[in-house]
């Protein structure tokens, strides 16, 4: 059911996205952040907490002053390993406690530091590669059902309750489980440690919580004969660290947007741009599918009006993702079914937008988000709106389908709500499975015209952004009607310029792996 779209306009959109991202990429290449460095430490095996429950990656990095940090934390750890012969994991508690002063090691030659760290870098990469291999193997042995992949959220605040809910949801047909994070976590400049049972609106993302959930889902995957995917959030101030943890614990998807934190959480834009890049490099290597957050443009403003902004953001997200080495198959661009149910032909507009995204990003595992804004306490009507959303998704071949909850407006889902929601989706997607293949859109009809107007609106927006530059465009309210200054917002103090001899061994290795892969293709 292809819509006729002007490919020259699409090409224009992509070249604008390239022009928009280019200068930001130059900034990214010249900077690092505290969270990037902490992710490096985690990949080198540093984990756990020290005094006052401060995570060791934070405690170790805090031991370096700004100047020492600008060369990257890896070299310092390499020096310590070269001197002591011990592993980074063993050295970290001593560095954190002040028993070992990294600055004392500044005369250890670079070659020695790099050489000493080589085995630990290889080990970190191997751990990630092994987890990726496990996933590939499991997906072959325990194949998923056909997309749209039914995705549900658990959010009790207690990882053990989440685990029970996740297993029940998987049994009821869920193919992807996302553990929503506690509401405050995006603004924490550290990742909490260990299993957690207290959280508001969600459960803390910790490596142990990841492990607990992965283990439970692996068990239920075996029982059901199909692989159940696990999702969390690489967003907020600790994007790269969460990506590292997710890679080590075989998460399958991560929410990972290039601009979401800037616009909706007031996180500094420079911090976000640098962080999203390294986290996406890791996701690329780990085989993790990213989910972008364009749905947020629609929940906060009018969905009909904002459709071009969604598309423009998808092009920008795609460009940032490509630059980080993510292949199309791992770029889950977001959209949502948020049009006012009272609007005449609103369903047609939703179909037009969803189909347009499908055609413009044919290999991307598109993430389709359910209605939230117009959901009310009337759960009966809610179930009906969700059914129309389900129909749109199956018709337009969306890949990742976040199941809408009839109780969306009331509470975080009850176990029974999830089951009803999954039944709704399974029913609609079964009964209308091949509807999309049977439809030919009327030439120049409502749907086609809508798609064309969204596309041309997106190009207009991209033109304006390209002219201003992305950072200034964000300041000038080009996205989501929110203004964020380049040096404002949270986490700006954690951004720093790389020195001439900056070294991030994982970035180096991942870039090389990506180049080799591109060459092989």
């Amino acid at each position, binding site marked *: 059911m292809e819509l006729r779209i002007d490919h020259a306009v699409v090409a224009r959109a992509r070249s604008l996205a390239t022009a928009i991202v280019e200068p930001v990429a130059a900034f990214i290449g010249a900077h690092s952040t505290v969270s990037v460095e902490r992710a490096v430490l985690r990949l080198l095996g540093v984990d756990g907490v020290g005094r006052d429950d401060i995570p060791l990656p934070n405690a170790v990095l805090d031991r370096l002053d700004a100047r020492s940090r600008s060369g990257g934390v890896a070299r310092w750890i390499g020096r310590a390993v070269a001197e002591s012969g011990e592993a980074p994991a063993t050295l970290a508690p001593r560095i954190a406690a002040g028993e070992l002063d990294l600055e004392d090691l500044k005369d250890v030659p670079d070659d020695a530091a790099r050489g000493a760290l080589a085995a630990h870098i290889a080990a970190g990469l191997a751990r990630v590669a092994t987890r990726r291999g496990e996933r590939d193997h499991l997906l072959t042995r325990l194949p998923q059902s056909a997309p749209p992949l039914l995705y549900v959220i658990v959010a009790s605040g207690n990882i053990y309750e989440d685990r029970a809910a996740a297993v029940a949801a998987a049994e*009821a047909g869920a193919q992807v489980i996302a553990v929503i994070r506690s509401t405050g976590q995006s603004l924490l400049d550290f990742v909490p440690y260990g299993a957690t049972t207290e959280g*508001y*609106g969600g459960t803390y993302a910790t490596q142990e919580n990841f492990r607990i959930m992965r283990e439970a889902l692996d068990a239920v995957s075996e029982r059901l004969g199909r692989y159940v995917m696990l999702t969390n959030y690489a967003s907020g101030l600790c994007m790269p660290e969460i990506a590292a943890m997710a890679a080590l614990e075989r998460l399958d998807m991560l929410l990972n947007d290039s601009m979401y934190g800037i616009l909706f959480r007031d996180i500094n834009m420079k911090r976000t741009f640098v962080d999203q890049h390294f986290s996406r490099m890791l996701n690329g290597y780990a085989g993790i599918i990213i989910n972008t957050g364009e749905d947020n443009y629609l*929940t906060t403003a009018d969905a009909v009006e904002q459709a071009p902004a969604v598309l423009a953001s998808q092009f920008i997200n795609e460009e940032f993702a490509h630059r980080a080495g993510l292949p199309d198959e791992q770029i889950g661009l977001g959209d949502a079914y948020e049009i006012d149910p009272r609007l005449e032909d609103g369903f047609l507009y939703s179909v037009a937008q969803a189909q347009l995204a499908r055609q413009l990003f044919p290999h991307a595992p598109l993430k389709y988000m359910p209605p939230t804004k117009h959901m*009310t306490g009337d759960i009966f009507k809610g179930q009906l709106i969700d059914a129309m959303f389900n129909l749109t998704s199956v018709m337009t071949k969306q890949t990742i389908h976040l199941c809408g909850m009839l109780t969306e407006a009331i*509470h975080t889902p009850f176990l029974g709500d999830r*089951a009803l929601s999954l039944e709704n989706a399974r029913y609609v997607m079964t009964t209308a499975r091949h509807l999309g293949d049977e439809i030919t859109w009327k030439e120049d009809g409502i749907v086609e015209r809508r798609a064309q107007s969204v596309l041309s609106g997106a190009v207009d927006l991209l033109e304006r952004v390209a002219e201003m530059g992305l950072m200034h465009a964000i300041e000038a309210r080009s996205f989501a009607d929110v203004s964020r200054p380049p040096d404002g917002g949270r986490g700006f103090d954690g951004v720093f310029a790389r020195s001439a001899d900056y070294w991030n061994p994982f970035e180096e290795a991942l870039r090389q792996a990506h180049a080799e892969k591109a060459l092989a293709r």
Partner: protein
Amino acid sequence: MSTLVKPYGDTLDDGAMQLSFTLPIEWSEAADEAARQLVAKMGFEEVAVAEGRRIASGFSFFVVYARTPVSADVSAISAPSVKTHAMSMEEIDAFIRERVRRKIRVAGACIGTDAHTVGIDAILNMKGYNGDYGLERYKEFEAFNLGSQVSVEELVRFTRDHSIDALLASQVVTQKGSDITNFTALGELLEAEGLRDRVILICGGPRVTNLLAAELGFDAGFGRGTLPSEVAAFIAHRMADRRAA
């Protein structure tokens, strides 16, 4: 005069109701019977389990119809509405010019760890909600939207530093009563700082009712579907009343 009311199925006073719930047990005929007995123990009569099925291992879902023998006396209930003054933006601006005679300073925020600004944005942002403009658009309001995850302390400090007349606290996340805890903390801190009488204190969120607001000692509470003009009209009238007093 009392006005007793009961749920209506298809005949006056038949008391017919529908219930649905999940039990943490594997489905069986005994599970259906357990569901029936539970509802009967709640005092319902003629309990019929219309649907009972397994939804996951160890969990069953039920849809039950039953009749209640009890009724409520509507005439004995007072639930004050805050939405009594239906006015347009122009009318409200004119009302403020005439009756308050200065701009009203309003601040709003999602308090605590809540990051969901959809409610506060709908009321304050220029754009508004459902075709009804937000307070930023009004000529006679000076509106400050402090955004998400604002601590109670920050909000109180802002209130004092900016001589705020009306304060809007929003809570979308309600898990484990966090909304009530945060609203209560805000009321208490304003009280402690001696600011409570100086501001019109309003709470909002999907679970907020005006009755709840009254219990928390707030001046008003606005729930889901509230239009900015409803909040604006309430604030304008309350300011006018204060000026007249």
